């Protein structure tokens, strides 16, 4: 008798372990599939959740399943499996408040799975709680299992499965759903983090765009300020030749009249005089042409300075560029303050030779440095301490075998040590608000160092002088021209 029993027992035992093994394998495969799905999906959690629900229903022999997310006391359904259209319509988009007596409410408080044999059997159903009614009547659910989805301490959702008949879930099945719930919580948290990251990235990109916009507007302002200075200086310069043109033309017209009178007259000396007048007219018209050319070249130079973009690097007459910048800066300063004047002295190296530069940019740098020099001497002048003070700005050029040097020296207020450390910083300025963008030296520095491969050095003593020394290589090592 015992032998038969023993045999039956061992067969039963073998069957149990075989079943357990089989279960184990199925679990592992299901997990593997789900994890693969999560890895591939990146952010589309709804799909992953549906996949999880399917597997859970299959494994647990359940009839329907819903995955909820939870936030601030409210559940929202996000994934469904095998639920009726009616139930789905009821659930979709509905904020389900975690009322304490409902299943979802209870797990929100307890943070442990809830297993209800028959949802119809509870007082909640009798008291006609809408969620319970919908679950039981629309969903056709009887046995109910809800597992909270936790991310650390935080409740992020609920994994719920139901049977259409009253048949409790086994411990293994409950364990399985708990594992799925854990995975789902992870997937949800990941998706949320990714969304946050995307949001932050978009924010940063927007900030970057805004900054770039602001930067380019500031540079534009600086350019316009520089252009404004140029325009004032140029306008003054053009007035002079234009006045001569008008005056000499007018005079020539008058003289032409006199000529006619003389030619008509019978006076013997008239013919000689007529010749003299004719000569003067010719000279006048020569002057008109001369001043016309002068005005023309002023306009051409102004267009050169106002043109956007750098054009080519080419050999220029450095002394001419330097002198022109000096004149323009001076007239610009005088346009702002007609009573201001300073002594301008130049010492140009006649053998400076050829240098490859970007002419507009270099002119801009010199304009900036000389304008600063004039500002400094004016400040010292207005300081008024020494009535015999004579403002002076000196511009020199010097050639060397491999490089050339341009010096801008002023006997103005000088630069204190703490300012010296920062003066090439963008937006740093010692001028009162509205008077300077703080970009002049920064741009100049970039143009000389980055664009030309040169150097800017400063020497200064407060209350005495400042000298900027620009050093430019004659030829830049790397050719900057584009391949097209």
């Amino acid at each position, binding site marked *: 008798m015992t032998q038969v029993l023993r045999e039956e027992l061992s067969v039963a035992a073998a069957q149990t372990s075989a079943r357990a093994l089989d279960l184990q394998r199925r679990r592992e495969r299901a997990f593997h599939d789900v994890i693969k799905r999560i890895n591939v999906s990146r952010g589309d959690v709804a799909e992953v959740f549906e996949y999880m629900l399917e597997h859970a229903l299959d494994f647990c022999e359940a009839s329907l399943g819903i995955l909820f997310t939870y936030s601030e006391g409210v559940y929202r359904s996000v994934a469904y499996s095998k639920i009726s259209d009616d139930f789905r319509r009821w659930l979709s988009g509905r904020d389900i408040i975690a009322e304490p007596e409902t299943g979802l409410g209870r797990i929100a408080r307890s943070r442990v799975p809830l297993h209800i044999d028959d949802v119809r059997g509870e007082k909640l159903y009798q008291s006609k709680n809408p969620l319970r009614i919908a679950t039981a009547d629309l969903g056709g659910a009887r046995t109910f299992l809800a597992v909270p989805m936790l991310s650390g301490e935080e409740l992020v959702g609920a994994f719920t499965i139901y049977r259409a008949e009253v048949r409790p879930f086994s411990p293994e099945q409950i364990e399985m759903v708990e594992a799925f719930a854990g995975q789902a919580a992870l997937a949800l948290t990941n998706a949320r983090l990714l969304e946050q990251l995307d949001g932050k990235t978009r924010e940063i990109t927007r900030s970057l765009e805004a900054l770039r916009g602001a930067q380019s507007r500031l540079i534009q302002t600086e350019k316009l300020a520089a252009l404004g200075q140029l325009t004032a200086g140029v306008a*003054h310069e053009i007035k002079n030749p234009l*006045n001569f043109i008008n*005056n000499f033309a007018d005079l020539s017209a008058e003289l032409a009249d006199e000529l006619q009178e003389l030619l008509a007259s019978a006076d013997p000396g008239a013919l000689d005089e007529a010749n003299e007048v004719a000569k003067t007219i010719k000279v006048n018209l020569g002057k008109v042409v001369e001043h016309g050319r002068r005005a023309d070249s002023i306009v051409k130079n102004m267009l050169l300075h106002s043109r956007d973009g750098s054009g080519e690097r080419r050999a220029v007459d450095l002394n001419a560029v330097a002198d022109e910048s000096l004149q323009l800066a001076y007239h610009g300063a005088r346009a702002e303050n007609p*009573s201001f*004047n300073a002594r301008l002295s130049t010492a140009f190296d006649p053998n400076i030779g050829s240098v490859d530069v970007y002419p507009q940019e270099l002119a801009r740098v010199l304009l900036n440095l000389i304008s600063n020099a004039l500002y400094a001497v004016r400040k010292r002048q207005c300081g008024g301490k020494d009535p015999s003070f004579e403002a002076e700005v000196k511009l020199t050029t010097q050639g060397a075998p491999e490089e050339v040097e341009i010096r801008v020296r002023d006997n103005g207020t000088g630069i204190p040590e703490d300012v010296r450390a920062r003066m090439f910083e963008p937006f740093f300025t010692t001028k009162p608000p509205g008077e300077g963008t703080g970009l002049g030296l920064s741009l100049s520095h970039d143009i000389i160092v980055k664009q030309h491969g040169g150097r800017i050095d400063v020497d200064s003593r407060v209350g005495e002088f400042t000298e900027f020394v620009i050093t430019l290589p004659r030829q830049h090592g790397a050719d900057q021209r584009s391949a097209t």
Partner: protein
Amino acid sequence: MTVRVLVVDDECDVEMLFRQQFRRELREGRFVLDFAQSALVALAKVREADGGTIILLVSDINMPGMSGLDLLPRIKAERPDLPVLMVTAYGDATTRQAALERGAEGFLTKPIDFSALRSEVQARLAA
């Protein structure tokens, strides 16, 4: 002794211009035109022995080195009786004010209205 009108301007074509504009007066010997291309030269001319023949000074304001506005008080210190007319491209009120405060008798903007200048000169000659 012929009276002189001294014109101070750094542009050298100014001389040719003035001589043509005042060719009748010059031909009639009403006065002599003299020219200086810098404030310092003008001061030197005023200080010379025959500086007294200068009865009118016409000066540009914008010149390299000493400006016309800075020349003005120095001339007035030297010759308080010598009238000075300022001529300039910058016709703004501040400059005008500064010129008149420093003792200028008149203020003309460029382009020069020569008939206006002519009347000013006649007025000084009559005085």
